[in-house]
């Protein structure tokens, strides 16, 4: 038996990229870290400011936790925070459910009608916040003769729904388009009624689009100032209004930074716990 030399890739004509690949993967990791840093840079600075005992944002005086405890003693701040959560969570849930249903509806339309819907759907995204805010305020005020106290939570919710629905729809529609149309036919063939088919067949197929839309909707709703200002009333201010209004006459209290940091930290920690929890249950 003769011993044959083991052929290398080079013999087959492939170039040796293994060195390059190593450098490439290290570069990748560095780039990724830089990007994460980019995204979190402002959040880190806010965290630093939240532990600063001075309200002056350019000098670090002493390390302190007092702003964290002061969040709870500032009645207007806690009020604003709870209002924000109520509206944003409610609006996000509604927008996600309704948005998905609407997207399915749009997807079933003939081409011309579909394009028209998409065009109209883009209008809330195109207008500057103040344009949307004032025009919504105007339209809602036309309802005031019937519902005199409508300004407040109801109008705020409707306004938030107005500008978050397009985000959900834009996230779900592409996934719907890619979905295999035969799946639906197969389901109906098997005797599944349309509405059941919706939840059991379509929704799972576009799951990631729905999730992305939900994230985007919550983000846009949580942080909104201008539209909320014009469409709320009767003392239902949200956190953004509170923050923007506090820069008019006095320095912003660092309790807001403390709250921001708490929110970020809390979400990060819960996600990490949830993730490690899930890792144990992952099926391959």
């Amino acid at each position: 038996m003769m011993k044959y030399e083991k052929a290398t890739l080079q013999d087959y004509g492939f170039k040796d990229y293994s060195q390059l690949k190593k450098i490439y993967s290290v570069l990748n990791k560095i780039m990724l870290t830089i990007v994460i840093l980019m995204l979190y840079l402002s959040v880190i600075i806010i965290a630093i400011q939240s532990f600063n005992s001075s309200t002056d944002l350019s000098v670090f005086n002493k390390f302190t936790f007092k702003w964290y405890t002061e969040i709870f003693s500032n009645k207007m701040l806690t009020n604003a925070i709870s209002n924000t959560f109520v509206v944003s969570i409610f609006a996000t849930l509604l927008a996600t459910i309704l948005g998905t249903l609407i997207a399915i509806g749009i997807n079933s339309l003939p081409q011309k009608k579909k394009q028209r819907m998409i065009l109209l759907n883009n209008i809330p995204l195109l207008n500057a916040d103040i344009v949307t805010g004032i025009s919504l305020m105007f339209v809602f005020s036309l309802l005031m003769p019937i519902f005199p106290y409508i300004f407040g939570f109801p109008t705020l919710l409707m306004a938030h729904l107005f500008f978050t629905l397009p985000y959900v729809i834009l996230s779900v529609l592409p996934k719907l388009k890619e979905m295999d149309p035969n799946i639906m036919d197969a389901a109906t063939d098997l005797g599944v009624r349309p509405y059941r088919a919706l939840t059991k067949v379509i929704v799972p197929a576009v799951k990631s689009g729905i999730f992305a839309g939900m994230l985007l909707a919550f983000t846009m709703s949580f942080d909104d100032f201008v539209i909320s200002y014009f469409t709320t009333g009767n003392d239902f201010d949200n956190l953004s209004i509170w923050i923007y209004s506090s820069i008019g006459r006095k320095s912003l209290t660092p309790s807001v930074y403390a709250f921001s940091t708490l929110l970020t930290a809390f979400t990060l920690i819960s996600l990490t716990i949830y993730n490690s929890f899930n890792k144990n249950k992952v099926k391959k």
Partner: protein
Amino acid sequence: MKKYRLFLLFITLLTVLVTSGCSSQNKLLILNWGEYISEEVVEMFEQEYDVRVSISLADSNELFYSKIKAGTTAYDLVVPSDYMVEKMYEKNLLQKIDYSKLTNYDKVLNPFMPGVIDIQSKMFTDSSNYAVPYFWGTFGLMYNKNKQGLKEAVTSKGWEAYFNPENLPSGTKVGMYDVPRFAYAAALLASDMSPNLETSESLNVAKSMLSRVKFAEWGTDTLKKGVANGNLDLAFVYTGDFLDMLYVKLDDGNTIEDINFDIYIPDQTIAFMDALVIPKKARNVEMAHAFINFMLRPEIAYMNASVIGYATPLLNSYNQIVNYQGNDEWLSSWAYATKKYYPILDVAKGMPIANLERDFLTKINNMVNNVKVNN
């Protein structure tokens, strides 16, 4: 499944709409600047009068106006600045204040400070029937003491230094308030003209004055912070802004001598006043008057001023602040600052801004934009 969900949705929306229709028990709705009233004062009022006070916020006079004009919420009290009071009055949005209900207001012995009375006299006629002063102040030139030669230049030349880079030490970073109306007023005051002129001539004068300086920054609250931390050397700000930074530094443990910035208030400057007004659509007018009356109590005004830091309009409270003789560091600094920057003068400093025609305001906006673009 879907029908059930729709039904649930419908019920929720219905409940929301219906509950929003329930009118509230004794409630007082106030539209105010952010952090512009002491929570303790509000709580005291709530307890004494058995009423719930809810404060909505906005950060500019224009936002106040949009809300009141639209009438989407029936506010009982609003706290606009002088020129906005005038605009609301002209547009018929305010109701007359019944001074017979204000027991703390002594008609014979006007309880307000001379500076406040002076502002009221320069505002539109009949203004005191529609607005009760809440806080007041002036505008000034805040400067960095650490910059060589800056203090001398500013205190000796005032506006001449601010608008003329040649009169300032080299490399001075100058900041201007990013509200075109104020920039216009500043430019006119520096040219020895009234800030309330509405002619094309005044517009041109303002434009050439503003074009003389390449402003390092146009900002609002960032100006006071900029001078305090050295990113800016000179800025045109509210005196209240300056005091705010002063108190922040004092809270940090510095003493008055440590502070590296100061303010120079020219004779020709803007004086401003934030006042309590009652919109026509107010529902709880009785309680609104009670609130105004409450704020006219000297000890309440004193408490409010101690938290907010702006100048109180009541003479009694002012005297209480400046006559402090005790050992408390903060209180003595407060006394010193109030006396120094809001002295009682024979001739009050400053001129309030009046409301201008909307078209002219647009011209001012365009003028300022052009200045920014050409520099």
